[in-house]
């Protein structure tokens, strides 16, 4: 299994409480990895460690290493903007930027140096199509992004994230605020996108994990209890806690 993201001996403390305990994990390339586990077990924390958004929390202490493309992202030499450009983020609730639909998608490319109007136009069109939103918005690209429905906003956020050409897509329960139809849209898109991107998906919905995940990471109380191929973990869990979760919980 090839992996460009390797987590080694990762510990995270919020003040005195330890949220992640000695995490070791290789994320498989170009697959969908689902992180599952009960509420409060540290899924969001782990995801935030991968793009260093964890650093915007007060009084947090991170030890250990996370390697992205062989580079330790917590080394002082690593530039955080460079790292974040590689790690697209889709949050639980969509946060379109306070600007037009066009400018939302063009925001990233503009930051990273694309200024030509024509070039931006084709980038915006390309990624809106990629996120399955183009047909719905092509006649109102200059209207505010906040006017879109929640489902459309989430697809816009996906297009915006893809437009900076990340290697990885991080999703923190990206469908939990959406209606079933929009959720299905996002799931289908993930299945299509995994041809080009590694996708890490935190989810509460076990059925979602069953539907789309190739690889499963089961966490409990800050630790990784079990991880492996989705079919193995979901059908033949080894650890009692995993068995309980996979068979028992409401999803």
């Amino acid at each position, binding site marked *: 299994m090839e992996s460009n993201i390797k987590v080694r001996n990762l510990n995270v403390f919020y003040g005195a409480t330890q949220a992640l305990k000695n995490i070791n994990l290789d994320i498989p390339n170009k697959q969908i990895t689902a992180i599952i586990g009960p509420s409060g077990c540290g899924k969001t924390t782990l995801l935030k460690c991968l793009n260093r958004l964890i650093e915007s929390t007060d009084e947090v202490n991170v030890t250990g290493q996370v390697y992205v493309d062989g580079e330790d992202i917590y080394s002082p030499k690593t530039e955080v903007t460079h790292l974040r450009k590689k790690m697209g983020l889709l949050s639980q609730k969509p946060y379109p930027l306070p600007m037009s639909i066009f400018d939302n998608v063009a925001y990233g490319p503009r*930051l990273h140096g694309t200024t030509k109007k024509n070039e931006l136009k084709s980038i915006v069109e390309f990624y809106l199509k990629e996120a399955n939103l183009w047909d719905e918005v092509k006649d109102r690209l200059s209207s505010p992004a906040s006017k879109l429905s929640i489902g459309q906003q989430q697809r816009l956020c996906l297009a915006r994230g893809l437009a900076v050409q990340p290697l990885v897509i991080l999703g923190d329960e990206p469908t939990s605020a959406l209606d079933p139809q929009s959720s299905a849209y996002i799931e289908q898109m993930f299945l299509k996108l995994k041809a080009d991107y590694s996708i890490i998906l935190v989810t509460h919905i076990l059925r979602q994990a069953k539907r789309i995940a190739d690889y499963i990471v089961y966490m409990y109380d800050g630790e990784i209890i079990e991880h492996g191929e989705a079919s193995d973990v979901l059908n033949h869990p080894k650890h009692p806690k995993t068995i309980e979760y996979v068979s028992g919980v409401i999803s």
Partner: protein
Amino acid sequence: MKRKVIEEKFFLVLMIISATLIVSIIVLILTSIIIKGFSSFNLAMVSQTPKGGYYLGKEGGILNAIIGSFYIAGGATALATALGIPVVMLMNVYLKADSKVSAVLRLCFDVLWGVPSIVYGAFGFTLMIFFGLKASLIAGIIVVSILILPIIIRAIDEISQTIPEGLFHASLSLGATKLETGFKVNAKQILPGILTAVLMAFGRAIGDAASVLFTAGYSDSIPTSLTDSAATLPLTIFFQLSSPIKEVQDRAFAAVLILTIIVLCISLLSRLLTNRHNKYKI
């Protein structure tokens, strides 16, 4: 049951009385200013400088004070905004949300907000004596900018705190720096609020007398350089009211009317901006 009904009635009546009282006070103030002001108002007041004899009841106007006030309030607002925005940025973008440094800074600005303006005036005056400077436009601008700095900072800071963290994170995760996020996302999200804060500060700056009393000085001519002393509307009102000549005293109310209209326009404008829907706001 009966007692509660009476209680309700009693407090309702009390509220209506208070509200009526306040509205009548406002109406009383405004009508007396308008009546007294209009009767002694003439075009020369806003188009001419005092020309020596104005304070003795002769021809002239207070154009010098109107322009002086706009120079000082405008300069101070620009200076305070330029100094204030980086501080707000530090508190809301660079420092973490529950940082202790931010909490201390906020407390400092709250204290500064409550300091009476004569204290700033006296402080400015002491500094000027120390540096051997005379009362001037620039000294007035600096002291007034210190007066309104806490207003600008705390007002923008308050609305900055309504920006959702997720929005900030969304921009960061696209590879934006904190600076880029601050200017391109946060500022856009709260733009009307920023303008309101700036206008509020301008309104406070143009109406304050104590801070400019010793620092800007007074002059019958329109200032042409930063080191000239400059007249201001609050001070021209003060001088005219303290005149023994009845006609000059009456004209003070025309100056009051002018100042009131300016401040009223500014509050209306800022109210308009606050209510105006920010098209792109999330």
